[in-house]
């Protein structure tokens, strides 16, 4: 944005000050995340830049924390667990959530407000309360400290995101398309897979990604419900931070940041594609 010609000196000072403030805030947002990346290559077990690092001396850098990470059985198990639990929970929450969203977006749906309230409650209720409740209940039905328990818990936490994103996609959904398909003789199932599904697919996928990241990042419920066999990456990081914080945490963090960048890109691409397909082209 160029500055209008009629700006007074005061306006100009404000114009620049404002931008400086804004970039300081962007810096505040990004710096903590980015600063871990170089620190994870520290050759020393410190959390600050050593003299060698600052002078770009190659000896100041090493991959030892990545080797630590890759060589550790418990970290590797936690990665496996995070993906297994995350994918299983995503499948459950995406299937149930998409069906529910299709029902909720029908105009005939009775008690819509109440049901919507119940369905998105896992997103509203403080995690500590959900975790405590699940801990007691899952223990009593013998699924605490099992994969099944953690998957069900994470599926419950992930569904609101699927319901909300898919419902949002359906708001812009042109119902005359399914009616046309029906008029032309397609069965409801065929209509769903040939017409509805392709159109809401971006919403379903981004809902699924939200559900996945919810599980992938979740720690409170894991702390209460998971046993040592089901430890996920965040749970392993929690132990690492509490007991003896070593730069291995930073190596893991760096890898996780890369994963989030990848996920963010996918979601953004999907969002744009979805807007195009529904004819709501971006401005």
């Amino acid at each position, binding site marked *: 944005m160029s500055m209008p010609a009629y700006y007074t000196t005061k306006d100009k000072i404000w114009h620049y000050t404002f931008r400086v403030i804004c970039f300081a805030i962007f810096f505040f947002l990004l710096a903590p995340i980015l600063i871990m990346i170089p620190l994870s290559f520290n050759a020393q077990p410190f959390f600050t830049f050593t003299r060698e690092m600052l002078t770009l001396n190659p000896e100041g850098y090493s991959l030892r924390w990545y080797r630590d990470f890759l060589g550790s059985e418990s970290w590797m198990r936690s990665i496996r667990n995070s993906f297994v639990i995350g994918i299983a929970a995503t499948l459950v929450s995406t299937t149930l959530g998409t069906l529910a969203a299709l029902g909720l977006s029908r105009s005939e749906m009775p008690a819509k407000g109440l049901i919507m309230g119940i369905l998105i409650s896992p997103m509203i209720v403080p995690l500590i309360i959900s975790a405590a409740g699940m*801990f*007691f209940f899952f*223990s*009593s*039905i*013998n699924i*605490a*400290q099992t994969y099944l328990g953690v998957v069900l818990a994470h599926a419950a936490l992930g569904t609101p995101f699927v319901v909300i994103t898919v419902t949002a996609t359906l708001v812009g959904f042109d119902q005359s398309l399914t009616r046309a398909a029906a008029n032309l003789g397609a069965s409801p199932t065929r209509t769903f897979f040939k017409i509805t599904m392709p159109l809401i697919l971006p919403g379903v996928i981004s809902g699924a990604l939200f559900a996945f990241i919810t599980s992938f990042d979740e720690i409170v419920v894991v702390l209460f419900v998971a*046993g*040592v*066999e089901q430890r996920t990456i965040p749970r392993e990081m929690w*132990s690492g931070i*509490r*007991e*003896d914080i070593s730069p291995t945490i930073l190596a893991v963090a760096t890898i996780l940041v890369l994963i989030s960048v990848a996920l963010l890109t996918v979601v953004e691409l999907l969002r744009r594609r979805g807007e195009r397909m529904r004819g709501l082209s971006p401005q």
Partner: protein
Amino acid sequence: MSSKVKLIALSSAVSVMALSAAANDPVSLTIVSWGGAYTASQQRAYHAPFMEANPHVTIVNDDGSANALAGLRAQAQAGNVTWDLVDMLPSDAQLACDEGIILQIDHDAMLAPAPDGTPASEDFLPGSLGECFIPQIVYSTVLTFRPGAFPEDNQPSSIADLFDVENFPGRRALQDRPGTNLEWALYADGVALDEIYDVLSTPEGVDRAFAKLDTIKDHIIFWTEGAQAPQLLADGEVAFATGYNGRMFDAIEVEGMEAAIIWDGQVVEWDGWVVPADGPNVDVVMEYLYWATDTQRLADQAKFISYGPARASSAPLVGQHADLGIDMAPHMPTNPDNYFAPIVLDNDFWVDYGDELRERFANWMLQ
């Protein structure tokens, strides 16, 4: 139950190998402990040798001790106990014992006697055995200071010095819980070591302890996690810090931190095993316990971590640190040179008054 255990005890007294001689089905034991260096020391001193002698047994470590009470109760209420053995503090063990969710222990029947034949109940340090609790180690909370913070001719040497800000100025790092701090306040205020808990059981005694703490309140920094205390000393943040003797040992002997331990008034506490009732493999656990708490095994653990063995007969067997080659005996809380004025933490007292005093302490910290 007890006759069966006696039988087992007898058989494993002959040899641990006897166990593996029989055609045994594979067994997996889930043992819950504190994680980190502590679990590592148990792994090296107990688990690994036991698994070697009994190839059909696999031991899985779970570091859930901090929240083990909740896990034990939930598993018991659900009737689905998955833990075989749990490492916990005696006060937690007392609560679990009251609830009936862990087994009562007949110490002489279930534990090995000392090599000279002294029964277990007399060999374990006085006051350490609980109704349901088998102690492993004794650790203590000690006062530590930075010598550089004081002139050479005026170094602190007692708990009373912690409360003397005129002669020993500087900040003090204390743990953010009432245990230890209240005992020390009374000790420094002139209460005899063996009367501390009697005084603390009265409302006047509690007021007296808090009044004494008030005198240093402006100089206190509170720490929460065990690793913070030596860190605060090493950073020069504080002149005094209270901390676990094992952590302080590591910081001083391994990392070369400049600090000295005052053994006066060390608050001694145990840590040990409890057996969940209705656990999946109680028989194997009992064999493990009989072996892993004998004189030699307890002495072995001290090679890997600087906590004292809970048996008197283990003390002479404590050797050198496995990795550092340091003679461990002088660093043990139970070494006679260190054990001259100990306060033995009264778990019964803390189970009874813990809730109330914790609330009061939390309130006091925020004032």
